[in-house]
């Protein structure tokens, strides 16, 4: 059961002083099966006086505050201590890809109504006809877990990770056309495919450990927040898959927030009064902590 210390620093630099600001943060990792947050600390500069927190509709931790003094820069430093267990590996699902939509619908009718929201197009994951060409390659008789892996194989073969290819606002259609993107694009595109297939699929934001375990290659997306997807497997529950790294999420995937797409989980949102354009810089380190040191 590895233990991680996560340091996540974000800085805004405005071109002119901002008289005031209002911000929301989704930076505190989730408490969920397999993951326990032992400690969380937020440091905000300049200091704020009305930091409030609540849970959003997806159960993510949300911090809300205002900045009342005129400022050129704003810094958010979030520090978390998280214990993570390796998720149970599932070789096969009990349902096939073709059976999943009906099984999901049955689960919704049986009371799990919230699943429904993960089956529909969302602002960042619109319904795109181009997606059909990808999903058509999957055999409907595959069991769902194998189908998810195979969809990942297609991504690994046809799409290139390119940190410079896109920005937060790049539309999904362009990602498909250029066949390159960052983890967020991979996640959104994977969601578009999964939803096209009638699956309930969610967007996950989180972290990866910065240095790989000895003898293993480093993963992509270690120096910033990472994104992957989670697919509801009827009869089993949510199963997290990382299309960027072509693997199921393991004990080095640390979950911060879950939602329908990036818009539901954006780590920092701000409204500024004045300030003009701003530059954003961030740094993330995720390091394993020796449990003995903690005592």
């Amino acid at each position, binding site marked *: 059961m590895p233990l991680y210390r996560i340091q996540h620093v974000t800085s805004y630099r405005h071109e002119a002083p901002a008289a005031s600001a209002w*911000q929301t943060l989704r930076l505190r990792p989730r408490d969920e099966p397999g993951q326990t947050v032992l400690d969380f600390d937020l440091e905000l500069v300049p200091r704020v006086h009305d930091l409030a927190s609540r849970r959003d509709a997806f159960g993510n931790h949300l911090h809300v505050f205002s900045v009342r*003094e005129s400022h050129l820069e704003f810094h958010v430093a979030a520090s978390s201590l998280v214990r993570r267990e390796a998720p149970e590996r599932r070789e096969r699902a009990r349902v096939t890809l073709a059976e999943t939509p009906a099984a999901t619908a049955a689960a919704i009718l049986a009371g799990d109504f919230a699943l429904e929201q993960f089956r*529909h197009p969302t602002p960042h994951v619109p319904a795109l006809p181009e997606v059909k060409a990808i999903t058509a390659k999957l055999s409907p008789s595959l069991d769902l877990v194998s189908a998810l892996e195979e969809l990942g194989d297609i991504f690994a073969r046809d799409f290139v990770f390119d940190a410079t290819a896109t920005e937060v606002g790049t539309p999904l259609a362009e990602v498909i056309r250029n066949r390159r993107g960052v983890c967020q694009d991979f996640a959104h595109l994977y969601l578009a495919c999964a939803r096209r297939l009638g699956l309930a699929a969610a967007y996950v934001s989180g972290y990866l450990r910065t240095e790989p375990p000895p003898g293993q290659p480093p993963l992509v997306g270690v120096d910033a927040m990472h994104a992957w997807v989670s697919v509801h497997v009827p009869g089993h529950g949510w199963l997290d898959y990382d299309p960027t790294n072509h693997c199921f999420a393991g004990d080095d995937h640390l979950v911060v927030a879950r939602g329908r797409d990036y818009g539901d989980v954006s780590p920092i949102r701000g409204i500024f009064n004045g300030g003009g354009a701003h530059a954003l810089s961030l740094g993330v380190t995720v390091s394993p902590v020796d449990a003995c040191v903690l005592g």
Partner: protein
Amino acid sequence: MGYAAVFGLARPTDAPPPGPGRSEKPSRQPKTCLGTLISTRSSMPPASSSSSPSLAGYAGLPGRHDEAVAPDGTLRPVWARFFQTLGPDPVAALRAAGEQARRSVVEQDISLNIYSGEGSSAAAWPLDAVPLLLEDADWSSLSDGLRQRARLFNTLLKDLYGPQRHLRSGAIPAALAMANPHYLRACADLGRGRQPFLHLYAADVGRSPDGRWWVLQDRLDVPAGLGYALQNRLIVRHALADSFRQTPVRRLYNFARDLRSSLDRLNDRSESPRLVLLSPGPANESYFEHTYLARHLGCPLVEGGDLTVRDRQVFLRTVGGLRPVDVVLRRVDSDFCDPLELDPRSLLGVPGLVDAAQAGRVALANQLGARALESPALLAFLGPLCRSVLGEELRLPNAATWWGGQPVARDYILANLPALVLKPAFAGRQALYGGALSETERRALADEILDRPGAWCGQERVLLGTTPVWHHPSDALRPAPFVMRVYLAWHDGDYQVMPGALARFNADGEDAGVSLQAGSVSKDTWIVAPGRQGEGLLPNPPASASSRRGSATPSRLADSLYWLGRYLERTARLSAHLEKLDPLLRDDSVSLDPDAASDAARLALELQDNPPPAGEPLSGLVALARRAAADRRQPASLVSNLLRLSRNLEVAKVRLPPEAWDIARRLRGFGAEGASPLPAALRAQLATLESIVGDTLAHDTGWRFLEIGRRLERANQLLFLLRGLLARPGAAAPGEFRLQTALHFADSLFTYRAVFPGTFHPADVLAWLVSDAENPRSLRFQAERLGEHLATLPAELAPRATEQLRNTAFRLLGAARLAESEPLEDVSARVARFTGDQLALTAALHDRLSRLYFAHGDVEPDE
């Protein structure tokens, strides 16, 4: 589990048994759709043989219920009595009432902003003076049904934004909320409080052929039109005064009175809750209504920028700093209310408002997110929901509705496309008549529905009932299909129905939505109830409540009033200046000093940022100045200043008496495209406005800002005049004609002559214009007033900055007072230096004032 949902399919809404307009011989009748669509294509037929002499041949339309005439051709009793009250010539009486109503609408400047492409313009409010008359018994059963509906929607909303039991049980299909863009996740849990989710509810209802009321649409998020309904009553009551007196019409007074107290009670945290009305601003279609309601409720009319959230509490930015707000009557759509947690593109909202609501620190009426249940798809499930939620049968039917999200319903829709009205389940698209589509269009629509069936609903088409309306072209009453919007408000634990309504019909006779945007005409609705006249009469609302605590004046309002004062003065001075140029062309005494007259004409050009050409004769300069005045592209021209005056007047209107509204309308006319403002006519309007401002407004803090604007602008204009006419480097001392000209253009010649009979010395003239305390046009007079007004403004927020501001006014006063005692050798040089120094002071005054009071609460306390 899916039973509840499947149950409703065949007849999803407890629809009533088929009536004449629904399935019997449908092909023979002109079919229209209920929804928001009505057809009047077949209406307005030539008048048939007269059924009643007093109705001038009025008759209903085949297949439709008519309000006034029963199927056997006789007048219904309530209408018969009404026509009797109109006297011997009812047609003439109704024609006169129509004219009277139209005049009232114009005079009171009641407008509706119509969105038309890029620009939007205000059109006069369309009102038909012939009221819709309803019997009290008929009304009572409709009211009962609507109260039930309001309770049902309130309960459903509290559940949707609370425990979500009805989603879990499947009574509401999950997709109706979970795939609905108007279900606002940021508002989850806002339904858990004790307060109602819906404070105000409105329903559009229509009459089916069998005479039953049908609900066409439920208005949950921002039920608009209440202010127009109240205003209609005031106008029609006046236009049909005799009839109104003789008819036992139920009064709107109690409902209107209770509105404020029930709003106050939404927030029980505060002893004396502070209410504001949040409006999208003057560009919104219903801005008139917002100003009207704010006046009626006696609360500040604010826009998003007036409010700010700190410590999860909403504050109003005022000239005295931030004041807490406890209740927000919201006229901004939920989605646009908070750019931080809702639509980030919105410029109308208040960042942090959702969180303040989540913290329970502010009550919103209605609570955020209500639009989620405005989906027509929900109508397919309302009957069963009513049974399971309230344990009652749904009393009012709505048009039978099929939601494509259910396979059986989807197949029904696809099989019956030509007979149905197709509506997007979650808005974003116009409703479509299946029957009006071509074969190709229908196939495309079918594909679209197959691709995303949950995004579509099919609804049956129902004939709307008609009511008599005044038809101008034929100068007679004609039947027109109508819809009626009825308002309910939460009061003391239940919903209270306003005994009246905003009825609307489509005037242009085409298939079109009965939307206020699309050219429908409104009507007052009279509920006739003998023996129920205990209530008082609806009063004309007062001008917006001026807060007793002057420091509570909203910053943005103070800003607008200040600029109103400045533009009022600037426009008045400029038009007076232009008016005085013409006579110079005919005045022989100009030959005494032709340069002086030319300088006055040049100044008119300079004041409008138009460099005067050299060597131009006086007549040419005057013509140029007049042309410059009408130049809309030049921001300093008379007409541009007039347009800015109008805009500020629009914002400040809520504080001004009705006479000012009429002037506002006329001023807009002067500034309209193609109109060239005639200085003399313009001056008359401005003079009236000046006298209203000076003599009828309460001398509260808002008025102080207006006066500060006027005084500061008057000081500036005087300094420009002195500089333009008396500061001419190297010239000899000004002669008598030049001095007279300066006095004349400063509106001070008449008074000067009384004090200094027969003599014109530079020293006397300057003393009179600059340092005399008794000349109301002198610089000193303006400085003294400025000092007095500034002394009354709140100082507690930033005492040192306030001190500096007041000192600046003192320096101006000192300079004006002392100017007299200085030696007067080189008049030109002295006037040039003096005016330059004082203009710098007035500029500093403006800067300090703006920073201190108009920074909208972002002033840093200076201690």
